[in-house]
């Protein structure tokens, strides 16, 4: 089977602990792949490795079949990847609008010196903010908006990047049902657009509702994978993850 993202015997250790331990998985294009597992099972570490936030110690990561020895985070735009963070990381002392504009404008340092955001950029940013119901907050500083709105702003930055591969790290954590519904709808829209999504999540209802494929990790190793309904009823998963 051909995968858009593949890891082969991927290893990442912190001191003596193997956070990701000889992990070999494949992510299919245009699907939502859920990534679940108990705390410390290596989900976020895997997201960090795939987005170049951490460098891997051993093994291989392949994008569209091409292996990358070292992944630099700034290459994400080239490789069409973006992500959100488990702990929200916004540009706190910048306006909500600037948090989006900085994603939309020129990447080349010299060219960016001579670029001021145009009405085209502004319209794009405002459309994205309307999509996540943050348009009215566009002139507020990121640290002045509520927790739910901060989560939405992270999603808005992902929408601004408009990449083919999106890595969501617990986007629903600690949110009210209303905002959960909003983010669920956005993720469904992204799937309709043909985006490839990896979703780290603990809420099994959301996993069942959104994911096409599910990967369960435990202690950095692959425990099970397959269709969500089937995987979540496997005894080994219930024992390791749900404690049943």
């Amino acid at each position: 089977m051909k995968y858009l993202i593949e890891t082969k015997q991927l290893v990442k250790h912190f001191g003596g602990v193997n956070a990701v331990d000889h992990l070999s998985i494949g992510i299919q294009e245009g699907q939502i792949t859920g990534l679940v597992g108990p705390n410390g099972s290596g989900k976020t570490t895997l997201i960090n490795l795939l987005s170049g936030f951490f460098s891997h110690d051993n093994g291989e990561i392949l994008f569209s079949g091409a292996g990358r020895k070292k992944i630099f985070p700034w290459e994400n735009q080239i490789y069409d990847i973006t992500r959100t963070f488990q702990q929200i990381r916004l540009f706190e002392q910048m306006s909500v609008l600037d948090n989006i504009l900085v994603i939309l404008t020129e990447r080349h340092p010299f060219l960016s010196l001579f670029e001021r955001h145009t009405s085209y950029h502004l319209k794009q940013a405002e459309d994205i903010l309307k999509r996540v119901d943050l348009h009215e907050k566009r002139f507020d500083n990121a640290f002045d908006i509520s927790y739910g709105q901060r989560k939405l702003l992270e999603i808005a930055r992902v929408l601004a990047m408009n990449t083919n591969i999106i890595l969501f790290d617990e986007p629903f954590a600690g949110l009210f049902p209303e905002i959960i519904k909003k983010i669920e709808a956005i993720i469904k829209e992204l799937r309709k657009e043909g985006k490839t999504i990896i979703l780290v999540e603990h809420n099994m209802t959301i996993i069942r509702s959104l994911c096409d494929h599910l990967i369960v990790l435990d202690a950095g190793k692959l425990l099970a994978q397959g269709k969500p309904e089937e995987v979540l009823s496997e005894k080994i998963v219930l024992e390791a993850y749900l404690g049943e």
Partner: protein
Amino acid sequence: MEYIFHILIIVSIYGILALAQNLVMGQTGLLSAAGAAFYGIGAYGAAILATKFGINIFFSLIFVPILTGMIALVVGTSFARFRDDYFMLATLGFLMIFNTVARNWEEFTGGAYGIAGISKPYIFGFKLETPFSFFFLAFTVFLCILTLHYFISRSSFGRVLNAIREDEDALSIFGYQTSIYKLLAFALGAAFSAFAGVLFASYLTFIDTKLFTVNESILLWAMIILGGIGRNRGALIGALFLITIPEILRFAGFPVELAGLMRQCIYGLLLIFLMLYRPRGILGKYNL
């Protein structure tokens, strides 16, 4: 009247330095202690060119900032791996190296005796000797730097610098090679500081290493922290305030020696007061 113009010249020079420090520290979040070193490189560059080669200060105003910017690119490249406190210590080390070299390379820098007899700038046979005429040069350079700084701040480049200050790692995820932006901001700041150094050397006609110590870097920090991190208006108010304090003290009847000491105490007290009650500074939008 000459005295007023003297103050205005010094305020213009420190205004340039505060803008440079604001670009590097206020906007980009680089805790640089190298401001005084680049200021000194600018001053020594102009002084050496003027006294050894008879080069007009107007030419130095073009070449010396470019040369200083290039030095900053080399230094900044080797500092690229450092962040936060480590970056501050590395730049402090660079300032100490600059000071040691300037104090000991007597053939060029005059060592501890410094360099005297630096010529005033001249253009079309007219020498800018009076404080009044020199003020126009200093203020013009200041306005040019202010315009350039405004242009940078309003560009996409400026917005990226702000995002680096907020969260460099998160920004890199969105496809930015942040080290290049930081390096460019560092080099631009160094070039701006060199403009101030060239003006200062030419105005004073004498420089020595005691003028470019860590105290000078701390003064630049104090200016932008007092005025408001990340805001040009704040940096300028900080410069104006801290330059005029010793003059006000002198008029208040304090002897010159005591006024100098009082100045240091007031700087210290102001910083403590601001950190306690207004960490963003007078006009600041951002926390350090």
